[in-house]
């Protein structure tokens, strides 16, 4: 394989190593999570750990954080070898982890959250003044602007993340592990996070950034290490490699970063939304025509979920109307929507897209299971179901290509491919794709994007909801930006830039 193995940059030899993980093996009974993985991070650098889902990034970091003990290999933190593995020893050694899902108590204040478990006391009482003072001091020192007395539940996600970082710093962390930190942030907040990371670095802290977003790697890191199938494929100075190169290292083959698509030829209106209002959304008015992809951008929690529920019969709209193919469905349930020609890739595949305990075959007909070809006098036509499922698994490259396994045993990307296979097989008039590539490998992203574009070219109207700007920009022919439950602006694909969308997403005017 022609993959380049990058040599360790010469300068790092002269620096002290914060972390040195060598020859790490970690096996689970049916999975080899890490095999001969290694990671070397110099003190005071921002190091990106990249790889697809299941490449072993999380396992490697969990070993470093003491949650797992490795089967083989050595771990050195600040030059000292770790002999026992537990979060307590790792924290004592100066390792801190900011989890993807925040571990904060929403009803407590910022200061109370930061000092939780090591509260300053005044006699038997909690010394809140002292806690607030300490937090304020740390906040200025690291440039992490927070109001110590604010309740966490009232804070935007970006600020909550700062609280998490402060919490880790308060415990004396010298090395901070950040797990997919930008997943929940607006473009503006992402910029602020980068600034925070730079500040941490200036303060002499070391940062390990777990991510699969290449832009983030390029923007924030000094060096990077790529994992593939549990092993370290290479390490490089970020400035010296291109995004394409990193992607190739992650996947093991060249990946098309751009989606190949022709100009849209929009036809008749398919979905028409007029003055729609429901709890958390509206009033909203827009139209999606046959043969075009309309992208809905926006920070999560600005009414997209509610809108999607209105557009699939899961939530009743109070005011206004929604029609699919001329049929008013404002007060109809999901089955009427499907009958009118809807297919939907739901935003939460575990919750709405699949029945995890069902086999892949059963899942591939879920929602279509009452079609005449799958039923004979009330009985399931198992042969027809299995034939359909086998065909879809093959066509959409769901792995393992096995229809009798439980869907919950598939990886996230393959679960998503199975859902897309099922929904596309409905031959829909309207395809709604909500965050279709969330948590999906780069290789699969390419495939999913192609599938969506080919649905458009077949003549389906496509509504794409995504918080990934790059996805919206790559796929959408028209972009609507949602803010606070309303459409804050509409941009043609030619005039849509990341900056313009970012401004609208943050609630400002262009």
């Amino acid at each position, binding site marked *: 394989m022609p993959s380049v193995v990058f040599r360790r940059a010469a300068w790092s030899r002269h620096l002290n190593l914060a972390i040195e993980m060598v020859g790490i093996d970690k096996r*689970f*009974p*049916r*999975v080899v999570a890490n095999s001969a993985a290694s990671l070397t991070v110099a003190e005071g650098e921002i190091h990106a750990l990249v790889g697809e889902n299941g490449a072993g990034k999380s396992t490697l970091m969990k070993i470093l954080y003491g949650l797992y003990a490795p089967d083989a290999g050595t771990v050195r933190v600040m030059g000292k070898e770790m002999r026992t593995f537990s979060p307590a020893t790792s924290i004592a050694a100066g390792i801190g982890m900011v989890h993807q899902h925040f571990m904060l108590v929403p009803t407590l204040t910022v200061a109370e959250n930061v000092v939780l478990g090591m509260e300053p006391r005044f006699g038997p009482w909690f010394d809140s003044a002292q806690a607030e003072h300490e937090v304020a001091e740390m906040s200025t020192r690291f440039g992490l602007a927070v109001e110590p007395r604010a309740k966490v539940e009232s804070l935007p996600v970006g600020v909550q993340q700062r609280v998490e970082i402060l919490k880790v710093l308060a415990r004396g962390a010298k090395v901070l592990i950040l797990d997919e930190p930008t997943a929940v942030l607006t473009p503006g907040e992402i910029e602020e996070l980068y600034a925070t990371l730079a500040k941490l670095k200036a303060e002499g802290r070391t940062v390990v950034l777990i991510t699969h977003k290449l832009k983030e790697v390029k923007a924030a890191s000094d060096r990077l290490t790529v994992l593939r199938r549990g092993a370290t494929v290479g390490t490089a100075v970020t400035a010296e490699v291109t995004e394409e190169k990193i992607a190739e290292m992650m996947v093991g083959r060249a990946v098309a970063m751009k989606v190949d698509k022709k100009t849209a030829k929009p036809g008749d209106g398919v979905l028409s939304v007029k003055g729609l209002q429901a709890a958390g959304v509206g009033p909203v008015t827009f139209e999606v025509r046959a043969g075009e992809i309309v992208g809905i951008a926006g920070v999560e929690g600005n009414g997209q979920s509610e809108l999607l529920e209105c557009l*699939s*019969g*899961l939530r009743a709209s109070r005011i206004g109307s929604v029609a699919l193919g001329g049929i008013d469905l404002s007060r109809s*349930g*999901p*089955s009427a*929507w*499907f009958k009118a020609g809807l297919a*939907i890739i*739901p935003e939460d595949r575990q*919750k*709405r*897209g*699949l*029945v*995890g*305990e*069902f086999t892949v075959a*059963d899942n591939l007909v*879920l*929602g279509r*299971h*009452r079609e005449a070809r*799958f*039923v004979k006098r*009330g*009985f*399931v036509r198992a042969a027809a179901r299995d034939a359909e499922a086998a065909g879809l698994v093959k066509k959409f490259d769901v792995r393992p290509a096995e229809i*009798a*396994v*439980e869907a*919950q*045993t598939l990886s996230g990307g393959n679960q998503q491919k199975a859902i897309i296979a099922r929904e596309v097989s409905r031959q829909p008039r309207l395809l709604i794709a909500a965050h279709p590539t969330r948590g999906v490998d780069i290789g699969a992203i390419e495939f999913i994007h192609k599938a969506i574009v080919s649905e458009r070219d077949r003549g389906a109207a496509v509504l794409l909801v995504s918080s990934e700007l790059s996805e919206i920009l790559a796929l959408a022919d028209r972009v609507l930006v949602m803010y606070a439950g309303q459409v804050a602006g509409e941009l043609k694909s030619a005039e849509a830039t990341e900056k313009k969308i970012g401004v609208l997403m943050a609630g400002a005017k262009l």
Partner: protein
Amino acid sequence: MRRLGHTILLRSIPPALALGAAMILGLVIVAAAGHNPFGVMRNVVEAAQRSYGLRDDLAYVLLYATPLIFTGLSVAVAFRAGLFNIGGLGQVLIASLLCGYVGWKLASWPAIFAVPACITIAALGGAAWAAIAGALKAWRGSHEVIITIMLNFCAIAITDSLANGPWKAQGMTPQLPEIGACAKLPRLGAHPPGTEAGAPAIGIPLFPGHVQLNASIFIALLAAAGVWVLLFKTVRGYELRAVGHNPEAARAAGISVNRVTISAMAISGALAGLAATDFVMGKNYNFRQDDGLGYARGAFIGIAVSLMGQNHPVGILLAAILFGAMERTGFLLGDVPKDIVMILQAAVILFVISGNELFGRMLARKGVTT
């Protein structure tokens, strides 16, 4: 097929371990109560061979198992739909009352119509009673556990007032008049000498005639087969299981969760109600309030049977026979308190529940799926 065998094997490990653990606990308790556990075991084995011998025991085990099959299946169908039906008591009572009433009123009908009519009314009665809980859950969001418990008390009050009031047979006992001979289910064994002539019998030589084991066990076996077909072969069963596993996904896929909830409760109630075919048509030949209440209480053991049987019809058949055997053992214990059987049953339930959980976690850690 290899996968299927694998699954069956994996799923039968927790109940088997639970049974073993419960037995050991039982022996420890027997010892703690001041008996020699091995002596007790020997006594039970000897007692089992006395009088009619093992034929007798087999018949009793099947007799006790019959209602447990019905109520176990009832609980399992609800479980599969994500519902906990603990209203078996009420459903059995209401079904028995109606079955006894119809059997009494249709005394002049030919058996070929009377028997199906009584079976149908038993199923419908249980179904309607349980569907109340299903409907309240679907439309009002009331929790089915609360509602089915409440309905148990309602059922006791209704049967009590009718068996003491307008439908009461002559005499002091709160009961309905006897059902017609045409509505009676035959016993499996031969007529014992000197029993009342009103009891029909098939006369299978294997079974002693004095045991009330009757043809309702065939209805139970048919019901088990029916549940298997329903759950795993029909579209309705597919929808029912989808709702049980993931109601959100089912709803998003266009399945009416409300309809499935109501119909699953109705089917569950119908299965419980069919126990009336054993109690009224096969054993008592009338509805009697006090006996009926005692009989219907057995529905709670149906929950344990369903758990032990992993909510699968085949498992439920085996578990019902096991619980029947435990019940029978209680009569053979001699001077050891019969309470030990209840302790044993309770221990099995606890071990199965905790065993399922632990075993599931262990498998998950090892990445094995069932």
